[in-house]
């Protein structure tokens, strides 16, 4: 649809070019032919007595104007087919065109300045840079106002086409004026039509951009819905897996333990030896269950934690995060090597991960400092950033999760929203304790 509109605009431009060519050729030829006629009729002296002035040499003028207009057309065609839009080439071409027009108008003693409308039209079409367009247009408008025959003939002697027309009989004069004025009007009409088509074209483009923008927005919304859905599905899957796991391991063991304990209750008075044996068996089952639980938990651990130590995992996460989010993240893991239980490691890891994610996503932080060290038998975990922070701590940022996790380890956590966002957690650690 836009292609069709553009086609109309081009058509107007070509029509103006052709019409202006005809007008220039008509004027020059008319002056030349009339001059010859006056000379042939020996009316020259009489004619000179009636004019303001005459062109230097009508024949030279005719050729010069035709050649110049030819050059103008070549220039136009070059520009059109080479598609020199908004390049330096098109600027040069437009300046050349303007100069040619000025020379032709000057040679015709300002009897025809419609050529400037052609320049206007081309400036509108080719100059996209708004500053350059304004400069060109200003030049063309000033030119159009100044290149007015009636105005200039006050200041300088200019030959007048009407003087040449008045050499003919009254009827011929009427026809000549009719043809000439039609050409001038047609040129203006074409120019107005051209302007309309350009406006139309530009309006079309704006509408198209709007439509595309809406489509893009819809797609974005859909995409985020998909992402939410995918997250929920992952959560559901995880829950299902946990349920299965609990059912398969803990449920299995507990079922066995309950059954065994019931048997023990029945036997305890009858055969205490048997009970003892049975309890030993149940202890084994419980240990196996414990192993299963441990295995299940270890399956939930992050990949890094499987392979690396806590410090190394955190470092890796910090590096990865820094790389993907364009944020500087500094990690201070303290001097000594700290030993934690797996669940402690998991929680510390998750808290740090959540804090960094929050700092990047909500705080738009440029720098993040992570500190993890031992103070008075406790572990101090601190994550602070230089981001925008927030007015008050909202539980939506995953802070409730963090709090819950740390409380599970019997620790405390505090959030500070001045100067970015700061998470401070104190966690009592079961140093060296084990489940065994």
């Amino acid at each position, binding site marked *: 649809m836009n292609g069709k509109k553009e086609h109309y605009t081009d058509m107007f431009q070509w029509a103006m070019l052709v019409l202006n060519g005809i007008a220039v050729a008509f004027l020059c030829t008319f002056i030349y032919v009339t001059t*010859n006629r006056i000379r042939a009729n020996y009316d020259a002296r009489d004619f000179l007595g009636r004019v303001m002035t005459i*062109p*230097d040499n009508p024949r030279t003028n005719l050729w010069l104007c035709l050649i110049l207009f030819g050059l103008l057309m070549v220039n136009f065609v070059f520009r059109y087919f*080479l598609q020199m839009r908004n390049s330096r080439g098109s600027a040069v071409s437009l300046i050349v065109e303007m100069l040619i027009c000025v020379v032709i108008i000057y040679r015709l003693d300002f009897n025809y300045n419609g050529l400037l409308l052609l320049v206007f039209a081309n400036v509108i079409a080719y100059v996209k840079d708004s500053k350059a367009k304004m400069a060109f247009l200003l030049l063309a408008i000033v030119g159009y106002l100044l290149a007015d025959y009636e105005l200039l003939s006050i200041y300088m*002697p200019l030959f007048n086409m009407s003087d040449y027309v008045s050499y003919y009989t009254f009827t011929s004069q009427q026809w000549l004026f009719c043809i000439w004025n039609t050409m001038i009007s047609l040129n203006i009409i074409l120019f107005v039509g051209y302007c309309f088509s350009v406006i139309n074209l530009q309006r079309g483009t704006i509408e198209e951009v709007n439509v595309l923008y809406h489509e893009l927005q819809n797609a974005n919304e859909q995409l985020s819905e998909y992402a939410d859905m995918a997250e929920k599905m992952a959560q559901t899957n995880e829950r299902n897996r946990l349920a299965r796991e609990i059912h398969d391991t803990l449920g299995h063991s507990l079922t066995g333990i309950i059954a065994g304990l019931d048997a023990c209750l029945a036997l305890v008075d009858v055969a205490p030896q048997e009970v003892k044996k049975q309890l030993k068996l149940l202890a084994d089952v419980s240990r196996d269950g414990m192993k299963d639980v441990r295995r299940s938990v270890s399956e939930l651990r992050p990949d890094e934690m499987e392979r690396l130590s806590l410090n190394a995992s955190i470092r890796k996460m910090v590096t990865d995060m820094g790389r993907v989010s364009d944020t500087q993240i500094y990690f201070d893991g303290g001097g000594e090597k700290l030993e934690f239980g797996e669940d402690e490691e998991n929680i510390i890891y998750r808290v740090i991960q959540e804090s960094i994610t929050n700092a990047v996503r909500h705080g738009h932080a440029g720098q993040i400092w992570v500190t993890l060290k031992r103070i008075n038998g406790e572990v101090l975990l601190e994550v602070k950033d230089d981001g925008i922070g927030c007015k008050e701590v909202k539980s939506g940022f995953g802070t409730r999760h963090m709090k819950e996790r740390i409380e599970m380890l019997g620790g405390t956590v505090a959030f500070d929203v001045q100067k970015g966002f700061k998470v401070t957690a104190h966690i009592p650690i079961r140093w060296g304790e084990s489940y065994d």
Partner: protein
Amino acid sequence: MKALHNRKIIAAAVLLFLLLVAGGLYDAGTGPVVLEFGMFTGSNWNVANANSFLIIDEAIARFEAAHPGVKVHYYSGVPREEYSEWLSRKILAGEEPDVFMVLGSDFDQFSSIGIMKNLDELIGQDADFDAEKYFQSALNTGKYGDAQYALPYETVPTLMFVNQTLLTKEGIEIPDADWNWDEMYDICRRVTRDLDGDGILDQFGICNYDWLDAVYSNGGEIFQADGKTCYLAEDSVVEAVKYIRQLNELYQGQKVAQDDFNGGNVAFMPLTFAEYRTYKTYPYKIKRYANFKWDCITMPAGKAGGNVSQVDTLLMGISANTRKEELAWEFLKLLTYDEEIQTQIFSHSQGASVLRAVTQSAEMEAIVQAEMEEGETVISGKLLGKVIEEGYTAPQFKKYEQALALSDSEIGEILENDKTIDSNMKILQRTINSYLQQ
């Protein structure tokens, strides 16, 4: 990459265009330089002139010798009557000569439409050129507005022809050079007589003396210099017209014709210096005025003026579109400013030189004397110079010719039909003013 490609194409196109232009210029630049000169055949002064080419030919020979590689070409065979149209046709086609003669009736028109080159710049640049060497009146005829558009080539003052035989017969002395209207009226009154007693006057005082002659000698002007208003109702003009009526009244309604003059029956008649020279020399001397002795004096002075008469000047100018400005100026200067060439005017033409030094020289008197019979007195260079210098030159503006023709016919009507001069001149002034201001 594409932009580079485009740039190459544009550069090639520009180069091609420049080559074409250069080629055209080169083509135009080869071959001998030809300077075109436009002139008419015959005299500008309505007298026969067989030698009009002699001066020009000599000037061309000298010019070509001084400028090797330059040829001067002129169009021969254009009679004076056709010259204006011939030149106009050339001008219209943009093919006018580089240097050309311009008639007085064309000068203002051609200057106004920008065909004549403004010479002020060339004059200013030329250190050898001293405008003071020209008669001021002759130089002024080449001015349009405040600028010099043409230089004078040959000038012809109007003189008063005196029939010596008639005056001697009537016992009247030849008037002095500073005579006035009253003296002339007195002589005219005394000589106007019916000789054969048939009741019809057959001896007259003056013929062909018109109101313009009277206005000029009465210090009058007809038009303002810029051609916007006329002075027809001014005292100097009204007095002049009244003087003409006074003279006409002597003839009791009879018309004085050229034949009466040729027959030796008229005492005075204005005639040009060109006519003076033509009819003083063989063979024209025999054709006319053979049966009486005659001479020339100045015009009589009016109450408010001097012994002033109109001076006609043949002008030469340069085309505003010439490409050989320097050469054209040199050639124009040779024709109008060179004393040797200007002296030739007395040998081969009927006018007078426009240079003071030439016209007032003893050489000029010798040349003119040589063509005359012995015993004839030659007009002195001093007197001739005075007449030219003080001569009246008409202002130059576009409507001058038409406005003057209109005034002349209306005043002719006033005189013919005995209309009241004072009131009718006021009406005429208003009419002419409205024409001028159109």
